[in-house]
């Protein structure tokens, strides 16, 4: 996979620190799953965490803490954990492994809801302050011009889009914040399907869109 657009360092760091929401972590894990470049930077960001752990001023445990834990080592509670991370088989080659755990069907068979003609979405309903959804945009169509109050991550799963920042194809991630306003246009022969995670609601520029926004749920 020829990935041209990567995660921002600032995003990778908070991911490694464990401070990203479930939806944004899912998106980051889905990109990293297919991106050797970000895999390496992720290791480095986690090594920062390891170094910081060493820097912390130790806080003493209860005097009998070690004895309590030692007593558990020979019991069931201390038996070695098996190395079997559950790897769900992906239903669709375009669905990265981490996302496959949230979707039980191939992309084309999902329960898409039409927002406006040519634009469909599927909300993953993960909760938290932002939203996590799949968006499916027919060729030639665009999403209304918008900016963001917080961060918006977009991972292309299939097809491609272009906006003010360039062309984004499968595997690419757009890592945007409130300084960026853009209008993506689906620009290949097939639907552009992407995973989008935000940590605050989007902010649309046009009055009409702002009026319908509550109804279409973007």
């Amino acid at each position, binding site marked *: 996979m020829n990935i041209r657009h990567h995660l*921002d*360092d*600032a995003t*990778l*760091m*908070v991911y*490694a*620190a*464990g*401070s*990203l*929401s*479930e939806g944004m*972590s*899912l998106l980051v*894990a889905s990109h*990293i*799953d297919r991106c*050797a470049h970000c*895999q*390496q*930077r992720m*290791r*480095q*960001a*986690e*090594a*920062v*965490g*390891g*170094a*910081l*752990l*060493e*820097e*912390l001023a*130790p*806080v*003493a*445990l*209860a005097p009998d*803490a*070690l004895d*309590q*834990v*030692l007593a558990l*080592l020979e019991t069931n*509670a*201390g*038996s*070695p*954990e098996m*190395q079997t*991370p559950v790897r769900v088989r992906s239903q669709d080659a375009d669905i990265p492994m*981490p996302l496959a755990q949230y979707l039980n069907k191939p992309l084309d068979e999902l329960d898409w809801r039409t927002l406006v003609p040519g634009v469909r979405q599927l909300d993953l309903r993960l909760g938290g302050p932002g939203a996590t959804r799949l968006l499916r945009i027919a060729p030639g169509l665009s999403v209304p011009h918008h900016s963001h109050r*917080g*961060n918006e991550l977009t991972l292309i799963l299939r097809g491609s889009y272009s906006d003010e920042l360039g062309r984004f194809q499968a595997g690419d991630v757009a890592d945007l*914040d*409130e300084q960026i306003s853009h209008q993506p246009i689906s620009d290949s022969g097939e639907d552009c399907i992407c995973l989008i995670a935000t*940590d605050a609601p989007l902010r649309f520029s046009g009055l009409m869109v702002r009026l319908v926004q509550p109804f279409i749920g973007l």
Partner: protein
Amino acid sequence: MAAVISLFKQAPPVKEEWSACLAGLGQSRDKSEYGRLFQHFAPRVKAYIIRMGMTPANAEELAQEALLSVWRKAHMFDPAKANASTWIFRLARNLCIDRLRREKIQFYELEAEEPDPDDHHAGEHAVLATRMAESIRTLPEAQAQVLYLSYYEGRSHSEIAQAIGIPLGSVKSRLRLGFEKLKQVWGESS
């Protein structure tokens, strides 16, 4: 230079020792080795858990659970992929998220048999860890602050922005600048 060498002889970098100890534990299941690891890491893990927002009583319990997990997973530790501190940091972080937020956050894991271009000898990891610690200590205050708020307190970009009263974009650029400096430890500039 001679002074530097003798300094290292007096106080050898401990990180390699802990990685060797953890890797050995996976094979030997030796309780006295485990006790040494416990005495070093448990108080740091507890400090981390308190910073992440747990009460001291809960942090005590969770720190013990984390260290029990170290025993149960030691055989999965691969010193070529990370040093002991980083491995234990990941374990404590995942446990905190699980307990504090009740969310299942996915963290990217390489398959065990998958070759990793980033593999190093345990000795190299020790050198990296020592250089990283030095590098963290020399970060400008503004960059160190966002690093601490993120890693030690689990705060998001916007929470950090709110906490110290700067725009979201500044939080991100401070994190980027800090990471840029720390990455130079691996000998890369961008």
